[in-house]
């Protein structure tokens, strides 16, 4: 199990560009998030919703030594979490798709509406493809989407992680959204209307 001091140490190393530390940190956060999601979900009644922010917050409480770390460490931690979240969700999505091809349709159970958050929900795998393309063009834009969408981070927090102004993040987020929307709507006729 994770030790918050270890996490703090790793975070410091991660911030100073130590790739080994980044990898280890990522996999710790990934495991923790999965574990928490798993636990949360197994106790929810159908009809409940789970929110990613809550999930991330719990991982944060669990993994993170709040005494030793400053605000900056914290937002970096959230950024790592966002990456882990993205990975988990995309993996789940793939698994789900594979299963649908296999014939069992689990959607019936889920179609009560509460689970699928809203009508304009994007197909995660489409989003992932588009995000990868965006990453080729400008990695910073992709990173911003990751932090904002998967990590639920505030513009100001993202700005701190990337060490740019909030205004820049705001502009980039606008651009990235336009790009992704264009990319995804170029695939299916009516974007988001699946």
């Amino acid at each position, binding site marked *: *199990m*994770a*030790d*918050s001091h*270890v996490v703090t*140490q790793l975070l410091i190393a991660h911030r100073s560009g130590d790739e080994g530390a980044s990898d280890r940190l990522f996999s710790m956060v990934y495991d923790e998030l999965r574990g*928490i*999601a*798993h*636990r949360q*979900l*197994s*106790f*929810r*009644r159908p009809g*409940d*919703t*789970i929110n*990613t922010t809550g999930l991330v917050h719990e991982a944060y*409480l*669990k993994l993170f*030594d709040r*005494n030793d770390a400053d605000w900056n460490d914290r937002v970096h931690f959230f950024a790592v979490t966002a990456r882990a979240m993205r990975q988990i*969700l995309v993996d*789940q*999505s793939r*698994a*789900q798709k594979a299963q649908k091809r296999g014939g069992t349709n689990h959607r019936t*159970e*889920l179609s009560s509406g509460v*689970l*699928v*958050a*809203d009508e*304009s*929900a*994007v197909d*995660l795998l489409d989003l992932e493809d588009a995000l990868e*393309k965006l990453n*080729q*063009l*400008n990695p910073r834009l992709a990173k911003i*989407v990751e932090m*904002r*969408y*998967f990590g*639920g981070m505030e513009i100001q927090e993202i700005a701190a992680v990337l060490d740019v102004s909030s205004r820049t993040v705001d502009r980039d987020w*606008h*651009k990235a*959204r*336009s*790009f*992704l*929307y*264009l*990319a995804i*709507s*170029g*695939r299916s006729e009516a974007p*988001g209307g699946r």
Partner: protein
Amino acid sequence: MRDFSPGRWERVEALYDEALERPAEEREAFLDEACAGNAELKSEVLALLRAGDEAGSFLEGEKPAPVAAVREALHREPPPGSDLVGRHVGPYRIERPIGRGGMGQVYLAVRDDDVFMRWVAVKVIRRGMDSEEILHRFRTEQRILASLAHPNIARLLDGGVTDDGLSYLVMEYVDGQTITEWCRSQNPPLRARLEVFRTICSAVQYAHQNLVVHRDLKPTNILVTADDRPILLDFGIAKVLNPNLPGYQVPMTRTELRVMTPEYASPEQVRGLSVTTASDIYQLGVLLYELLTGVRPHETEGRTRAEIERLVLEREPEKPSTALSRAATVATVPGGGEPGSVARLRRLLAGDLDRIVLMALRKEPSRRYASADRLQEDIRRYLAGLPVEAQSDTWAYRSAKFVRRHPAGVVAAVALTMLLVAVAVLSIRFAVVTGAQADRVAQAARRTEEVRQFLVNLFEAADPAIARGRPITVLELLQEGAATVENDLAGQPDVQAEMLGTIGAVYRRMNLLADAEPFLERALAMRRSLYGERHELVAASLVDLAELRALQSRSEEAEGLHREALAVLRETVPEGASEIGSSLNNLGVVVYEQGRFDEAVPLFEEALAIREKAFGESSREVAETLANLAYAREDRGDLEGAEREYRRAISIQVRLLGDDHPDVLVTRQNLGVLLMNRGDLAAAETIFRQVLDARRRLFGEHSAPAQTTLNLLGRVLQAEGQLDEAEAIFRSVLAAHRADLGDRHYYVGRDLDVLAGLLVERQRWEEAEAAYIEALSIYRETLDGADHPRIVEARSALSKLYASWGRPDRSAAF
């Protein structure tokens, strides 16, 4: 979709940003001009702009859709145990659910393979908690938990894993109501509540003596039977289920899952620090508070978790007698509801009971009751009309309050405190942890905790002032702090002496020993003139100065001061008081460090006896002295006795602190040294590699603790004949010590001494000779007396070297 060309993308972005700055109707014209005929560029930017207009709340919806996917994928598993009723779990048939706790569902079950039926409670652990891990920990804890045979503790009977992989624990079934329900339904009078509470304390004490800490004492874990007998549930379970301390983060109430509010968590649990018996004392304090007033120490209704945590860490709880006003309408108050009863109760609580409760609830573990028994005893004394042990607060709080009254001095004081924290942390990180230093590391760790608390209080008062200030250096702050103490505190010599002593201690911790000296000496002199020779605070100042002398390698003076402090304590505090135990322990360390191992042993033995009584046989203090005793025995040649003490110390420490705690690592390492000295090289190597690994993780690759272990690994490798690796290790440790501590430090001498031994083995005589000579000259500077064992040994090693080398002529020169 269209593929944007990477070569053009940068340009696209720039134009997009610029276009967005303009009103929508001007954008196309702007692009016509800016793209200057590059139609593709223009169309790309336009497509993006259009997409932006259409995108609406794309990706910005409140709940990201992907959440549904996680949910779906993970939802397939049914909740644990939902289908267990009527089935068997091991030999137990599940009858019905009886409750739900943080860890999962609890069932009433019956063992029906016996001749007679036996009712039990079966706790099925929710999925997602690693079953194998839990089972493994259960097996290691089982023997201890199962041996907890006490009429007021529910026995842990069994545990295992169901066919479908859920782990479960089986406990004695208790037919009763939770203690809060009992208060509500019976409305027992004050005395009855206190008697029940005393019984609970005794049960907790019993468990502590058996090395089990509860960690999660709260009303739902305490049932009261029909004949008013309290029974404690889940003793030691928290550790089986969640060994890694974040103590209270054990989630869940009935239907919704959330992280439990920290209402019953001790400050150290909120911080994620080590959970010890002191945390149970704190939780007993919360319980007592609730039994007496019907409310908890901190108002938690409607607050967020973070707010509650802040309260637990920072806010002093109000006195129970005052808190009654919050609870005036609650029927759980003793004698609740009756006219006039609250006023009467307030009179009963004010004074001794207030003090008892607040002492159990102190923020710093070391300032709470030393044991559950002492708490219980104080209640007994209260009931018998005798004076109680609980006293109002002492210096940290007085200082904090002083600062609140004098805002002008606050900035400097805050600075000072920040320093204290920084330095305390540094001293842990960089303390060279060998043998007897274990003691200091442990002390530093404890102090950090206290200082942190002090800091928090100060910050509260000084926030706005700091916000305006520019960044200041550590030394500036310290000097400013000193000036403030001189000027502003002239009228309050007692506080002044305290602060001077603190500043001296800070300098000492920063290793600015010469700067520390005048402050510590003045603090001592002031206290002597204020209080006379025979006073506890004089003893405290003596100890402060003694520690400085020890660091200055002035061991004889250090010893004299420690002896004086001990004599003062023996006259001013009761026989067997914990202060005497600490004093003996510290004196033992100084005596030991002078190489008088025989003399150190009885000092440690006496310290041990006192500490066992004062803190309990399985306390951290006892472990500390045991480790010192082991070290002294070892150096005196009593290897068997030493190994015994080490192992006892380790088992206490692991239990109290967990496997990887810095203190545990110190003791483990020393055991490794002993095994090495006994020739059990393989075992020693294993221990050193473990400790090294843990220390690198905890402190960093090049930290001093890791260096020390590395050194030892080098020595064991040398003994095993792996000379290349050993030499490389020795040289890197030596270089690090030279850089950190300077060329003339004792440790540099030790490193050279060790390296020389290896060089002799490799028959590189001249290098070895140089190393020995340098080591000896450092020893002579830093150790007392030409007959110190290290000096004697190094000299004899050197003459052996000359003999093997065949150069007795050199010996004469030397």
